[in-house]
């Protein structure tokens, strides 16, 4: 029997449309691996790097960090900094909705900021705004429904940079319903492209697309610009074991795997369906010296160690040739990174031996702390031990668990340690993390009042040329004082299935899954 063409054609079209509809209507989900569960969903409170990365999908601040580490407006349509440098005026975008459907007003912003500034919230960045750090907020006001004014006690050019920091939760503006009547945390009701779905602790956390999200018109850049939630749900799967995670990626149970170990790269790169993204981040890795230790307080010994360890060799061995040697605290992707920052320690065993002899070093063992949670720290300590031995320096590697090493770092209880600092947005913040009086801040590694004054000046200064000169001077002094040896900037390796489209890593390490699509 032959079906007439006038029936067959529309029938085929209808059938194909149905199939097409069925395919397009299929819910899309991106499954991403988490090394460990997040600590909470409260932005900038009870957090770690993993937590920040997830939370930043749900909340947005007044301003956000762009890819080139500049600051761009996010919930603010625009902002002004008054000539006095202490008054910040933000004009809010219109029609922005929270995940519960409520419209964003200046009153919500004031409430959210005041909550962060309340010590009871335990916000990580409180000390940055209460006068202990770079800024002191004296008032947060809402002169009308669309304007927010923040007044500082004194000018703080890095104030907006601080507000956008991921470890501060991007100072994400949340709705009042995020907390209970007693102030206890319930869950983030933010304005981000995704909202909180189901969280099964130690198993997975699911984010759902926020359909009423209003993207900015600018192109996406870092945490700023236009975001678009392409996949309907993002499921973050907690897979602590790296072998199981790799098997899950290859077996198709996971779509994307951030934080691949350097040693696993070659194997995973050889798989046909897997793509790999390798990028340099702004974190810094190296070796810290405790300049209060009786032995390590002698700059000649610290310098001898720096000259004895062949940096290129160490970086190559630790990162499988993925990273490049950078002896500067300034990340190599920073606009302030120039030829001055490219200078560093040149391997010189003879000079190292001479300095050791001059300092009266008699082969006494020096303990270098490391841990196995972060494999590169362990490898750094081992390779440094081997290379330092050429100059007759006896390094003894002491392996601790991460919590213990962090405690020893905080208390300044070590001789040397392999360590890595998380990304900081501005070079001043990097130096601020390292420099300070050890008498009151035992975690600081560089105790030098002149250097402290330079760092403070770099924070006050807004002129780019003058800031560059300060950073150049800081680098030269760091090579002289040798309070630490920076070796390389972090490497972020992400492996993902070829059906994942649009994923791109960026210098701040935290993966961003808006704009990521799934190919059927």
């Amino acid at each position: 029997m032959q079906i007439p063409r006038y029936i067959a054609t529309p029938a085929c079209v209808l059938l194909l449309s149905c199939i097409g509809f069925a395919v397009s209507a299929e819910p899309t989900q991106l499954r991403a691996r988490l090394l460990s569960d997040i600590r909470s969903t409260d932005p900038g409170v009870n957090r770690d790097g993993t937590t920040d990365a997830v939370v930043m999908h749900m909340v947005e601040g007044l301003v956000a960090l762009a890819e080139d580490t500049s600051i761009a407006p996010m919930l603010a349509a625009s902002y002004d900094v008054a000539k006095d440098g202490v008054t910040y005026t933000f004009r809010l975008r219109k029609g922005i909705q929270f995940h519960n459907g409520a419209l964003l007003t200046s009153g919500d912003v004031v409430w959210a900021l005041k909550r962060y500034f309340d010590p009871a919230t335990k916000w990580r960045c409180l000390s940055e705004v209460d006068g202990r750090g770079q800024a002191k907020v004296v008032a947060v006001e809402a002169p009308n429904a669309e304007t927010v004014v923040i007044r500082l006690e004194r000018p703080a050019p890095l104030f907006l940079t601080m507000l956008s920091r991921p470890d501060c939760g991007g100072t994400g503006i949340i709705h009042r319903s995020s907390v209970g009547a007693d102030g206890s945390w319930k869950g983030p009701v933010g304005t981000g492209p995704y909202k909180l779905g189901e969280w099964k602790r130690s198993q997975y956390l699911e984010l759902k697309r926020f359909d009423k999200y209003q993207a900015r018109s600018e192109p996406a850049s870092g945490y700023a610009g236009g975001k678009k939630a392409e996949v309907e749900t993002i499921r973050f799967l907690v897979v602590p074991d790296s072998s199981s995670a790799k098997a899950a990626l290859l077996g198709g149970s996971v779509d994307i795997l951030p934080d691949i170990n350097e040693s696993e790269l070659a194997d995973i790169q050889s798989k046909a369906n897997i793509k790999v993204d390798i990028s340099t981040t702004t974190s810094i890795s190296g070796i810290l010296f405790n300049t209060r230790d009786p032995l390590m307080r002698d700059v000649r010994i610290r310098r001898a160690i720096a000259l004895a360890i062949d940096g290129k060799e160490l970086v190559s061995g630790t990162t499988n040739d993925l990273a490049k040697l950078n002896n500067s605290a300034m990340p190599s992707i920073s606009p302030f990174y120039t030829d001055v920052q490219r200078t560093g320690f040149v391997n010189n065993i003879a000079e190292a031996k001479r300095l050791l002899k001059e300092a009266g070093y008699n082969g006494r063992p020096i303990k270098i702390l490391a841990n196995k949670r972060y494999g590169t720290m362990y490898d750094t300590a081992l390779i440094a031990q081997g290379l330092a031995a050429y100059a007759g320096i006896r390094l003894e590697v002491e392996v601790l668990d991460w919590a213990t090493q962090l405690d020893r770092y905080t208390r300044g209880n070590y001789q040397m340690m392999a360590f890595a600092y998380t990304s900081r947005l501005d070079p001043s913040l990097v130096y601020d993390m390292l420099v300070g009086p050890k008498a009151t801040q035992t975690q600081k590694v560089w105790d030098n009042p002149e250097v402290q004054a330079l760092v403070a000046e770099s924070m006050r200064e807004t002129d780019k040329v003058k800031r560059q000169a300060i950073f150049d001077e800081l680098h030269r002094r760091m090579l002289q004082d040798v309070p630490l040896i920076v070796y390389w900037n972090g490497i972020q390796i992400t492996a993902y299935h070829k059906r994942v489209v649009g994923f791109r890593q960026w210098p701040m390490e935290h993966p961003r899954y808006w704009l990521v699509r799934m190919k059927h």
Partner: protein
Amino acid sequence: MVRYIIRRLLMTLPTLFLVGVSVFSLIRLIPGDPAQLMLGDGVDPGQLAEVRRQMGLDQPIHIQFVEWASKVLRGDLGVSLSDGQAVLPLLFERFQVSGVVVIIAVMAALTIAVPAGLFAAHKQNRAADISIVALSTVLLSIPSFWLGLILLLAFGLELGWLPVVGYVPLSTSLSKGMTFLVLPIVTLAVIEAGVLTRMMRASAIEVQRLEYVTHARAKGASEWRVLTRHILPNAFAPTLTLVGLILGNLLGGIAVLETVFTLPGLGRLLVDAIFARDYPVVQGCLLFTALIYVLVNLLVDLCYPLLDPRVTAE
């Protein structure tokens, strides 16, 4: 019998007290600060001190202990410092996962080990015996994480029969939930079968040398009857003791397997809590484990009279 059980339970109180004191002190003796871990690097010392105060960590250790112990006596194990969850419900939730895996795995291991051990003893020093002993030695020598990974790669990745990561509670879907539990159960069962087979074989060899076994054979009892009615009950008693110890040990956590198979069990909870210096969770986990250990061994002791009527609870 009831008096015996009550007496045994009362005897656990000093044990739990000692466990509580030692766990409370030891976890605080090791370096590491939950407030520091919560805030991360580069935080202001004043702010760190303030958060420590809010968490009650600035109090002298004996005051912290008295506060914790008084809450424990009221059935309150406190809340997690990491995420604010109540510890007791968290323990029960996680124990369900570990409990299912461990109990099914030990039962499966016994199902393999008892006949294999009996058979090996019956064929002592012959090829079958040597093969069983060799195989069980190999099994108990295999590291659980290695076997787990091999099974994961074979059945999850290569054959694609079972899921590689994830977990679905049995209460949500029995069939789907079991697919996530098959591999951890098989891994654990295979390894424990090795230990139990050797124990069962050794006990059976011991028992079959006794005069009453020779007497049974002289009476003309079949070999099957001698094995099952005369040797098995007496030979099983030492194996049962070992089962009690194994169960107590495993129920306290199979952290390595839970990590490989991404199971949200008690072992992973404990390991994560130690790394995060989450004191209430560590204390709760270890106290709970000690209690489970005591209860399982009490249950094992109560089972002895079923195997050997000469042994009574009194």
